[in-house]
């Protein structure tokens, strides 16, 4: 589904260039829930931004569903973001002027595809039911809690049935209870809608719900860990894995 090969990315600060991603390769299979973990500054967000095409990179390839994404033009990129990727951001990024329902419908509206728009209303209702936010459909973002906002964002990300859901610290701005509700939404999406999820997180608790965790250190893949089937064991393993990094 998603394949990253030998990805390299450096930032220019003043005249010096810092290599942040030093040849990263990874793969995410269809329907898989992958978490990316690592210390602060290890390049997690940079990796995600490369995959989302928010930033360019020097070397390597990223393929999504067999298509290389770096060959796409502006318009095609936009269309791909709209149709094949779903985004969940750390600080929600909901439009304050739209109701929850309309926020969820927005990706369909942006797509300008007749079928998508016609089905949007129904779809939004269903997503809201799935994520337990039906009761706030007509409220505005200012009137709901952080956890609810992020679940609205998840619903919005899934509006156009994307190939993959990309999330950067989705629980970063939330307390543990709200964070849990958002993680539940991710799990629900994976189980009921067979969504492929690629999530960057600091939080080993959140990561322990994933099928597989990729640990990054200094711009390289440090280790990959499979979920052994038991959540608490996996969380312990993750904590140990992170602890074993030399930092």
């Amino acid at each position, binding site marked *: 589904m998603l394949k990253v090969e030998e990805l390299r990315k450096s930032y220019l600060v003043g005249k010096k260039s810092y290599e942040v991603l030093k040849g990263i390769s990874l793969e995410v299979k269809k329907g898989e829930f992958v978490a990316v973990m690592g210390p602060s500054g290890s390049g997690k967000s940079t990796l995600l931004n490369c995959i989302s095409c928010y930033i360019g990179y020097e070397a390597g390839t990223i393929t999504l569903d067999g298509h290389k994404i770096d060959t796409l033009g502006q*318009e095609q990129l*936009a269309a791909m973001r709209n149709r094949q990727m779903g*985004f969940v951001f750390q600080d929600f990024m909901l439009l*304050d*002027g739209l109701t929850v329902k*309309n926020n969820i419908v927005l990706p369909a509206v942006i797509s300008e595809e007749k079928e998508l*728009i016609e089905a949007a209303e129904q779809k939004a209702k269903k997503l809201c039911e799935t994520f337990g936010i039906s009761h706030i459909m007509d409220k505005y973002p200012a009137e709901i809690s952080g956890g609810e906002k992020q679940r609205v964002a998840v619903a919005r990300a899934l509006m156009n049935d994307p190939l993959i859901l990309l999330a*950067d610290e989705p629980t970063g701005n939330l307390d543990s209870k709200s964070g849990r509700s958002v993680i539940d939404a991710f799990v629900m999406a994976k189980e009921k809608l067979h969504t492929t999820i690629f999530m960057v997180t600091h939080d080993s608790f959140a990561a322990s719900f994933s099928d597989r965790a990729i640990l990054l250190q200094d711009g390289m893949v440090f280790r990959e860990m499979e979920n052994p089937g038991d959540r608490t064991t996996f969380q312990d393993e993750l904590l140990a894995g992170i602890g074993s990094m030399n930092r």
Partner: protein
Amino acid sequence: MNINQIFYMLRRKNIAEYILYMICTIFSVAVVSAYALLLFSPTVMEVLPVGGDSRKQAFGIFAVVCIGCLAFSMYASALFYKKKQKELGIILALGGNRSKLYRTVVKENLRMSLLCLLVGLLLAFPLNKGIWGALSLFIDSPEMKLRVELPSLLISVGIAGIVLLSTMLILRRIIFRMDLLDVIKAEHKNEMVRKLPKHTGLYGVILILAGGVISYLAPGVYMDVFSEYPPAWLNLLYLIPLAGVYLTILYAVVGGEKVEKKHYADMISKSIMKFQGRQTVNCMLVITLLIGGGCFAAFYVPITMTAFGTSVQAKEWNYQYSYPQTRDVFEEGQLEELVKKYGAQIQEEKDFPVLLAAKDGMQEIEEGRKFHYEYHPRMATVHLIKESDFEEFTETKLQIKPDEYYAITDEEEIARFDPDMTLFSNMETREEYPVKFAGCLHHEDLVLENSRLYLISDALFERIDSTLSQEWKETLCYRKIANDSYQLATKVYEEFCRCFEPQDMVFCGYDRVSAIVACEAGQEYWAAAPEFQSFSELSPDSPEFQREWIYMPFFKIMSLQGTLRNYAVYFMLFIYVVIVALVSAWLIAYTRCVTIGMHNRYVFEALEKLGASTAFRQRELRKQLSIVYKTPTCIGLVVVLLLFVLILYGNDGGRFSKSELLGLLICVGIEAVIGAITYVCYRASVRKVSLLSSFH
């Protein structure tokens, strides 16, 4: 559902911002349109002579108004779309197509702009009528009917077009250049200002004062030193005081390195400001310039009005005129008959002869930009009257030596006179009479509009008179007429003009002596150039003719009406600038405050969580917002007042006349009013921001 419906919903939710934006645009369009209607109306155009300084000035002001409104609208739309930037960014991040989004937003803006243009244009008419009507209450004369020229409105359409274009550019930049990374990044982006050296504020004030004086004096000094007209780049010196204003504001916003103890008191407000310093400073600079500009325009009217009104009022003889002795002005009893017909009476009358001779002096010779002075024994015309006439007229006694002359000026010596003459010449016989300056005498009625009278002894007067033909003699007439009326004055004027020949219809800049001297030297006389010839074709009723005709009589009642009308027009032209500049300044300050309040909501929330009392938070807030208002207002008001003090002091050789002091006093009053309104705006901003930050 489609994107337009999404925009509709966003509009509905953010209606307040849309309305504010539209009000700003409507305001600009209405002001420019009303000004254009006013300026290009025939009523106003007649008052402003073609090619004259006042017309240039008025157009200059109009240009300033246009630029001001343009800048204001552009600022408003930049601000508006800056607020919408996040919305647009989210749509793009969700995979919106940039060109499609751009088209949608431009379409939305186009509809709004057209609506604003229409409303603004319609509003211009009542606005125009209102101000004109208010003036008509004070001045009532047939010439005061306001006529309008509709094509002038095209200018506002043009302005709206430019604003639309600039908005499109702004949108292009926002939508096509937006870095999605900035949108999804959580941090706030602010430009921090460096810490400033200790005395920055002081340096700023010194730069303002010193720079102001230097740039004001520089052209004069340049001319003295290089004997050359100052080049345009000398105006760049005005950047010095501007830099001073910038430093002062910067200091006010960020503060210098202070003593630690004091620093804690301002810690919160200063640190907030530091992170929004750059934008706030730029904004305050604009506010300072706007307030200064508004004051400048506001002062113009009282300063000129007090200077002029008093000199007309001071004259006792309400009818004064002069004419060449080769013309028959008013046949026997003609004036008496006219006066009687209008129910008025001549109470007193005095006529006396005036001799026209040549005076010597330093003549300015131009060569391109360069100029130098050369002595010329016959430089210009001088008007001479004799001692005994003066004594009879003023009932005083004088002792003038045959080689002396006195200059006649007003009580405050505002009317310029020449104390450096050493030689009078008879232009016909070229006989020369050495003289020297003995002093000046004060008499309001003997100060003529277009020439200066000099007093010589009877002996010298007879010597010149006996060898001079009528060509070089004039008669000066004074009448006191009781029960005077405007109708009588216009009738007398009409009859007066009829007594002249076409060749007499020359403008007051034309000097007979200079013309002859230039002709003899085989040079062109500048005032004989074709562009001045058209003066003789003007109708005697046109304001331009009346202002500049060499034999223009003084009829007090007409003069008062005329000045009043002229000043009404000036008043109108300037009041617009005042309104535009000040309202823009206040709106910009207000929006800036709201922006600061919104950006720093989290600071106040944090303070609240830390247990700060409402009073404490209010105090911090007021401290912050007052900077935005206080500094620009103080600088603007003080600098412009100082500038006027400097100008009024310098314009007549380093002193203040009574009327100038009165004018300055009025200016201080105006400043007080501006200050008061600014304070009201400040209170309003505090209230608004308190509401935003949910203080209770």
